[in-house]
């Protein structure tokens, strides 16, 4: 086979992969810029540039509030799970005790739990804690998937750090908390950024818990809000608004992915390959 055929077919394959990956998002953007009846014409290229849909989505209703909810929940989840995980992974990586491996695997398996299996019990718990329909219910329940993953990755990372560093700190008379804060944290930034990002994306995208534990519109997070945008009837679904809202919540994520591409890939594979 001549080299140019090989090369052309390889780049054709690359092009197919690229187009398939990007097209749905591209088409959502194209649709979101159409107003009125134009939306019902199928166009493969951008034909109009109207911000009507964005204006409607952001000014009518509570979408702005819902974006804020999502930001608050995701940030809270990241901060709390990182704080808890740093302490736990310090213990798991440095202190020897019986059943440690078993414990690590139990922790990891929790993150692969079918979430519906805990839904009934969590619902009862959240109601009895009095945080039903409060953003705290989501911060609390999201720990089920962020904590195991964060602990797992941070433990792997801490194990790789040389023990001599902290021995030196102990000799200098540092307490365990001082060791964590002053010695480990500065070294752990890369791992913290990676796991924090992934926890943020998970929390931002979660649907089942957000859908179940929030009863009023103003308390919902964006995935639920978008799933529930509907018109007067089945035939009046405001597709333009839905696409505009979709673009608004997806753009920050895509920006994060593009900026932190390497970190995200590293985090995703650390969770799996080393497992």
């Amino acid at each position, binding site marked *: 086979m001549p080299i140019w055929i090989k090369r052309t077919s390889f780049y054709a394959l690359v092009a197919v992969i690229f187009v398939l*990956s990007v097209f749905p998002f591209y*088409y*959502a953007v194209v649709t979101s810029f159409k107003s009125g009846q134009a939306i019902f014409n199928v166009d493969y290229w951008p034909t109009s540039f109207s911000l009507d849909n964005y204006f409607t989505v952001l000014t009518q209703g509570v979408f702005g509030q819902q974006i804020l909810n999502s930001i608050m929940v995701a940030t809270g989840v990241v901060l709390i799970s990182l704080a*808890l995980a740093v302490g736990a992974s310090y213990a798991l990586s440095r202190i020897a005790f019986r059943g440690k491996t078993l414990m690590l695997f139990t922790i990891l398996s929790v993150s692969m739990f079918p979430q519906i299996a805990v*839904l*009934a019990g*969590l619902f009862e718990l959240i109601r009895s804690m009095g945080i039903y329909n409060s953003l705290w219910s989501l911060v609390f329940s999201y720990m089920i998937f962020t904590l195991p993953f964060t*602990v797992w990755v941070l433990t792997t990372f801490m194990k790789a750090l040389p023990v001599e560093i902290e021995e030196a700190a102990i000799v200098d008379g540092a307490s365990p908390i001082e060791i964590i804060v002053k010695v480990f944290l500065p070294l752990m930034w890369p791992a913290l950024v990676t796991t924090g990002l992934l926890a943020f994306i998970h929390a931002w995208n979660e649907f089942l818990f957000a859908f179940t534990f929030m009863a009023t519109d103003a308390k919902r997070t964006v995935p639920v809000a978008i799933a529930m945008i509907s018109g007067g009837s089945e035939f009046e679904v405001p597709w333009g608004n839905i696409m505009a809202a979709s673009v608004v919540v997806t753009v920050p994520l*895509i920006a994060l992915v593009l900026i932190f591409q390497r970190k995200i890939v590293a985090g995703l594979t650390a969770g799996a390959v080393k497992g």
Partner: protein
Amino acid sequence: MLLVLAAVAAYPLFRTFYFGFTDASLDMLDSVNWVGFRNYLEWVDYGDGEGEFFGLLVDEVWWQSVWNTLYFSFVSVSFETFFGLIVALVLNANFAGRGIVRAAVLIPWAIPTTVSAKMWAWMMHDQFGILNDLLMKLHVISEPIAWTASSDTAMLAVLMVDIWKTTPFMALLILAGLQMVPRDIYEAAKIDGVHPVKVFFKVTLPIIRPAIVVAIIFRALDAMRVFDLIYVLTPANDDTRTMSVFAREYLFDFDKFAYGSAASTLLFLIIGGVTITIFAMGKTNVGREN
């Protein structure tokens, strides 16, 4: 940390098991009565010597949703592994613009599931969707298809979106495996004049097999608990309802909290069983890695 995990995972799990043996309903979670296995199986005697079994274990809709879940998981994970392998091999090659393509591939993964469900729902719209338009222009189909509504294509629609969305994850995990293959092996094979296809099957594939097995386990576990995609793309549809959707519908939409809890319990046991089976099958491979 362990306390939080116990509170958020272990305790609710046991409460779910417990509710499955009670007559709990959404408004009365405080005063529930133990009813034994009634949610699972109950013989109701009609008094004239005839009777019928009721309960989850004889519920046809439940077994249909179990079948849907297993079918969905098997088909989606198979295709994702295949496509993921192709994408990973492409990304492992050196070519101009690799960084851009790798970033593009991550996009489907980063989009929230409900959002991608809506994006695809619009593309698969029966009247104004671009998918029907494209397929008709290419003369693949002669008339528009109601992708998400028709019972022949609903599962196909769900599978398409899922494969689109999670192939990147698969590709990244396999790519990580590929990057651990030492380069000099390829050079040695090249000098010996071994055909590239043969190199792939005899050298590359055996080396990356552990990575693929781990990726498949992760994806299979994830696919079996699928909920949001199906709930948003094809609501209340017998052809795509999975175990999670079934349980959620009974828990909150139909106000049969106990029945939904029983379904959640059974779901947990089924997924646990499948997981153990997969692990037993993959153990030899994973074991070799360590």
